[in-house]
């Protein structure tokens, strides 16, 4: 689990424009995620958070500017190559392969390691350690799991490619308080392992708890950037007001 070192930034974005069709949703965004950091993306609905994550993952044909992951320029790289150890995503709505088993979903997550049996098994073990319930249901079809369990499988699937950068689009959505606590703990452990995380989260309290730094997106641009620790009660109210 070595992270290629090239400067200390895992993700560096500059002058990024991206969107659907000819229409730019994200405009002139600059953003960095340092190695071993968790960075939160906040912003009102429609601000372009999901679009930004999709652009990083290479899922939008319309993207211009600079995106570097671990020093590699990925702006024109196809998704399946970005998936090779650079980045992986827990997308909006989880999007598991519903008719395949939980274990198949996880193994598909490790597709890019194909051939490296030992590493696959080790990663599978680490997912099971993080989410014991996933191991319990490993042979069930993914659609038979509840929302929270599916969320865990989605995070596990993301972990399986051993990515340098982890992208999560509202992982707390639909989770009960206990499950959110487990998820937050899991993210912290991943960060301690040196993973870099970019996280969209509507719940400001959770974002502040998990993240080192926060970007606030508005209307497709970065409106604010701050260290999470610097956000005091007043600042929090400000963010709340901003998002409303």
């Amino acid at each position: 689990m070595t992270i290629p070192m090239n400067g200390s930034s895992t993700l560096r974005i500059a002058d990024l424009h991206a969107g659907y069709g000819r229409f730019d949703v994200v405009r002139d965004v600059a953003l960095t995620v340092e190695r071993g950091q968790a960075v939160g993306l906040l912003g009102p609905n429609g601000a372009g958070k999901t679009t930004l994550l999709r652009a990083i993952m290479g899922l939008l044909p319309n993207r211009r500017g600079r995106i570097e992951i671990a020093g590699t320029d990925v702006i024109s790289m196809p998704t399946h190559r970005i998936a090779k150890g650079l980045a992986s995503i827990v997308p909006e709505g989880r999007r598991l392969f519903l008719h395949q088993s939980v274990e198949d979903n996880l193994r598909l997550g490790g597709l890019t390691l194909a051939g490296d049996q030992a590493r696959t098994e080790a990663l599978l073990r680490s997912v099971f350690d993080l989410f014991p319930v996933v191991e319990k249901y490993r042979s069930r079809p993914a659609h038979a799991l509840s929302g929270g369990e599916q969320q865990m499988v989605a995070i596990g699937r993301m972990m399986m490619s051993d990515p340098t950068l982890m992208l999560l689009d509202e992982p707390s959505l639909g989770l009960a308080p206990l499950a959110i606590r487990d998820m937050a703990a899991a993210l912290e452990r991943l960060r301690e392992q040196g993973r870099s995380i970019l996280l969209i989260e509507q719940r400001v309290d959770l974002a502040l708890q998990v993240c080192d730094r926060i970007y606030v997106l508005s209307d497709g641009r970065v409106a604010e950037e701050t260290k999470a620790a610097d956000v005091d009660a007043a600042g929090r109210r400000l963010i709340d007001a901003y998002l409303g």
Partner: protein
Amino acid sequence: MLQVLLSGLAAGAIYGLVAMAFAVVYYVTRVINFATGQLLMIGIMVAAAVSAAGLPEPLALAGGVLVATLGGVLIYGVAVRPVLAADRFSFAWLVSTLGMAIVIQSIAAIIWGPTSRAFPALLHRDIMFFPGGASLSWQQIAAIIVATGAAVAYEVVRRRTLFGKVGMAISSDPEMARVVGANVTAHSVIAFALGGLLAGIAGMLVGPITYANPYLGETYGITGFVALMIGGVENPIAAVGGGFVLGILSVAANTYIDSQASDWFPFVIIVVVLLVSPRGLFASGLRWRRSRGGLATAGTNS
């Protein structure tokens, strides 16, 4: 009795291979390639032409299969990929693949003319006799073996290998398949190439009986499609099973009812099959239960 069964299996093997050609493409891309029959035809025409040019027969057959395979890739590149890129859920591919079928057929008719030509007979010359007076040519036996072998091989790949599971992942969510690192384009090209390959092989196996004719594509396209429906589109092995069922029924109807009965009798059976099991004869109970479970659990994410 035995003769009916054997002839039915032999005819059904061809239908099954064509049905599997449809199913392999569908399995990955959710597209029914309506030019599959024409791929079989173009394989036969090329093989006939190469052989007529005086080259050795095995070379002719290889050439036919190769052209059918490349034809599959060409159809994907020209008629399917652009359409899916625009909207994955539209049925626009129906029009574009049918268009390709018409184009391939008319090109063949323009180059070789609308009449039948000789086809290398090869194994068809030798007959094997079974107890009870039944007989099949080695070519027919080869057809049965090839169809069964192809189905089993494919099923093993599909179920046991990660490669096969990727195919299923692509068909359910191509975007997420890309996210886990699958090269969707490469997989789709391979699926269309396999479809062309299977259609081409079917062509080489049936050529000695039908001779080479540009309108063969329609005939085998339809029967292959009907076999596909009897078996069920979801998995290729079922498609081959559907082919065998259709072959036996057709030959049996011709033998026991009258010589025209194969025109309608299989359809009666299909209606019964679809009334009992709308997803095809070989849609397993497990799959059905799973899909029902999927429906029921669709809204239970809490």
